[in-house]
């Protein structure tokens, strides 16, 4: 048997025979199963509730009696945020955004009922999702299983003996790494099962794309864990005693897993800070007013609209138009509002993305941030998926309001406008709100930096091992 194979095998046997090994594997599996089970349950409940209300809202929409179209535009409808494809595994930002948005004429309402705002403050310590267990806790398992792998041998003088007997240092290192990896395999398998369970049972996952997304999560997690494995090996190869290796690794874990992410978040929040909600609303209102004021008879935008509309139909008075002029004004106003909103909303989302970029840069110092970002992106539960939903909801709002304005224009006479009603049969022709999450390519755009950061965290300890080699 080659030295590599015998070392790997011995190391693996030593590892799995430890009493703590079974305890650790058991505890890890229980925690992960608990997190996955409740994750699936929660998302499933969320989806059921959404489906029920979406159906109800649709039924209410179609079941409206004869109504004035502008009445219907104010009646409005609701958009429900879809459950991300792998939300059961990695809920990402889902708990932190509103779940339902009321869509009506003239106004872009913010989403309501964010889950996180309704929890006690104790929960700010963390959310136990399968992703949290795999990305944050599993590296600790790697550390605990691996910190003694070379340091023990050195302390006992076995390392000197092994090297003196002519064991190639490369084979020794590779063998130890392989032994540790074999010992970790059951943990990785458990994690993979949890991931697969989320793909199969998770309510948001559909079709082959979900498996590809799952594969990407697995790739990111694998790369991340490989980084911690080599780091542990390197620390064990360098540290004077096993306890020092453990102390150093655990401190590093706490720093890059707990302290740095929050620090990065705190710094990112000031780069630059988002406007307050009141400020956003005030700026938007001022801009809408500046673009055109339908209530002001002297407003240039609406004066031109009036001139052009009259000229197009060759009449002198709006009362003589073959179409309802009130609806034309309303449609133009809606256009201006939507335009202003789109601009301000884009500015805010861009600002959020800039803040997010600060966090992604911090991922070079904290691989947890990199794997976290990749996992949420691949799971379709990141900030981008959320803004995609918000944009889709606004687009849908604009289209149904404008369709109602068109009905108003063509089917409602100008004189005695508000007293008229449109037949109820019109409402069923409106399409229901339907949004697809971002495509895989969209989810992954801009994540190259995070992949590179993970790769760097794998390469750095490898280079370290290469340079220091095995000190006897």
């Amino acid at each position, binding site marked *: 048997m080659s030295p590599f194979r015998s070392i790997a095998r011995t190391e693996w046997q030593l590892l799995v025979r430890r009493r703590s090994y079974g305890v650790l594997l058991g505890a890890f599996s229980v925690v992960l199963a608990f997190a996955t089970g409740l994750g699936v349950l929660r998302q499933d409940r969320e989806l059921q509730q959404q489906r029920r209300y979406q159906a109800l809202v649709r039924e209410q929409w179609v079941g409206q009696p004869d109504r004035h179209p502008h009445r219907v535009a104010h009646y409005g409808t609701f958009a429900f945020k879809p459950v991300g494809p792998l939300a059961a595994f990695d809920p990402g930002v889902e708990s932190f955004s509103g779940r339902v948005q009321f869509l009506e004429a003239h106004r872009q309402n913010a989403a309501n009922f964010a889950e996180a705002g309704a929890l006690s403050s104790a*929960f700010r*310590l963390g959310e136990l999702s399968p992703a949290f267990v795999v990305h944050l*806790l599993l590296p600790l398992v790697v550390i605990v299983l691996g910190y003694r792998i070379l340091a023990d041998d050195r302390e006992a003088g076995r390392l000197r003996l092994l090297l003196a007997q002519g064991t190639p240092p490369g084979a020794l290192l590779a063998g130890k790494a392989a032994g540790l990896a074999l010992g970790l395999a059951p943990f990785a398998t458990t994690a993979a099962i949890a991931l697969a369970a989320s793909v199969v049972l998770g309510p948001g996952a559909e079709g082959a794309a979900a498996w590809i997304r799952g594969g990407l999560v697995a790739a990111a997690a694998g790369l991340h864990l490989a980084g911690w494995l080599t780091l542990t090996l390197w620390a064990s190869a360098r540290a004077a005693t096993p306890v020092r290796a453990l102390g150093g690794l*655990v401190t590093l874990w706490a720093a890059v897993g707990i302290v740095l992410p929050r620090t990065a978040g705190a710094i990112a929040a000031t780069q630059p800070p988002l406007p307050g909600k009141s400020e956003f609303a005030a700026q938007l209102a001022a801009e809408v007013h500046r673009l055109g*004021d339908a209530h002001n008879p002297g407003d240039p935008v609406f004066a031109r609209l009036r001139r052009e509309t009259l000229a197009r139909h060759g009449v002198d008075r709006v009362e003589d138009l073959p179409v309802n002029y009130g609806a034309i004004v309303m449609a133009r106003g809606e256009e201006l509002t939507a335009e202003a909103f789109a601009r301000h909303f884009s500015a805010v989302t861009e600002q959020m993305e800039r803040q997010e970029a600060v*966090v992604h840069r911090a991922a070079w110092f904290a691989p947890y941030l990199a794997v976290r970002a990749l996992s949420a992106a691949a799971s379709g539960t990141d900030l981008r998926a*959320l803004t995609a939903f918000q944009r889709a909801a606004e687009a849908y709002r604009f289209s149904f309001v404008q369709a109602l304005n068109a009905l108003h224009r063509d089917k409602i006479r100008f004189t005695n406008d508000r007293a008229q009603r449109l037949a109820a049969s019109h409402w069923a022709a409106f399409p229901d709100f339907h949004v697809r999450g971002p495509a895989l390519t969209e989810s992954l755009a801009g994540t190259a930096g995070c992949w590179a950061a993970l790769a760097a965290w794998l390469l750095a300890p490898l280079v370290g091992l290469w340079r220091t080699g095995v000190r006897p």
Partner: protein
Amino acid sequence: MRPSLDLLCWETRRLFRTGTATVALGLLAFGGLVALWSADREIARHREEIARLPDFYAAQMQRLAGQFADGGHAGYVAYYAFFPTWDPPPALAGLSVGLRDLLPAAVWVRLLGLEAQLYESGLGNPGLQSLGPFDLAFVVCALAPLVLLLLTHDLLTRDRERGVLPLAHVQSGGLGRLFAARLLVRAGAVAAVCTGLFVIAVSWHRIPMDGAALAWLGDALLHLLVWTAFAAVVAAACGSTGASLAAAGTVWLGAVVVLPAALNLGLTAAFPVPEGLELTVRQRQETHAGWDRPKEETFARFFAAYPEWRDTPPVTGRFAWKWYYALQHGGDAAVAASARTYAANLRARAAAAERLAWLVPPVGAQLLLSRRAGTDLEAHLEFLERVRAFHEALKHYFHPLIFAEAELKPAAWSAFPRYQPPAPAGSAGSWLERLPLAAAALGPSLAALVLVRRTSALPS
């Protein structure tokens, strides 16, 4: 087991001779300063937003003055006029951000149905919110215990491994005394750093040193006391540095990372709050159905709540503002029960968290600290109650005008109601609230006592 002053001085000097303690405590202090800065930025954002509310309101009213230059029906003006209500951050919010970074600092309401206006999320970056706030409460609840455990886990094991424990035993006049001295010095150092950070925060954020502030510090130190007891058990129970380090890591990981997260997940699953969606959807349906119903029905419901308008002339035309607002009231009235259930369910969930908190001291401490600071869920629910009261005040102001079919010119608008928040206050709370946390310290303290006595009986 009372250690002498000499022993304490000696142990203090010995602690700082090693680099580990200096580095660990230095990092704790640095983390604390970052936390103070970060929480201060977040709260400053709220203060700035609130400070600008009068300007935003004035700008809105100026725009409306252009629209209603010749005056307008009170109901028509009220349709467009939004009024700011706000929840000023309490003085201690810079120490425990609590839920403030998730919830809006200001809610704008108008005379229309209130339930559709109450529950909007604040404007925040969910990507950053999911990382969790970095405030002094987090430092006290999560980081300080870690530093404490790192400093104390090898109180005895290190000397034992070096074979100098019997010597130390003899020189210090008893192992119990030595153990107590070492533990006291280390816990004291961590507590001193936390207290120092608190003092810096108080002078930096100009926090008044009232009962709530002292109670906050008291709770923070009580939490550290619990961890001192945990640390004593770890240090006394383990035979080797490897074992004590592993035990310390497990205890910290369990109490600070895994159990709180598991508790949160369990509570979310056990206390679902479906009323949110139900409430929104029903309110809209009720309000709008009123357009297709006889007006008497709508008014009957309205008069039940506001009988003073019972004898006003009926609406005969297609539209009247008083009917429109009666309709809006109908929407709110239809979901009043759901709104109460929603708040009650949130409170039940919070109460369950509190009942379980003594099992997980960091959760108990987080809850206490955010309550002291007035940044917990209860504080927000109380704010929403005040918004309700203000909405009621709006009705009392506008209803007489609307029922009188009054025309309002911009000059009269300065008399519109303004929201007056109560002075923000933290809560010093009662001693009773601290009992669970204090109880959490009791068990491990006794265990440590027994363990140390057993160890000192058999000096190895």
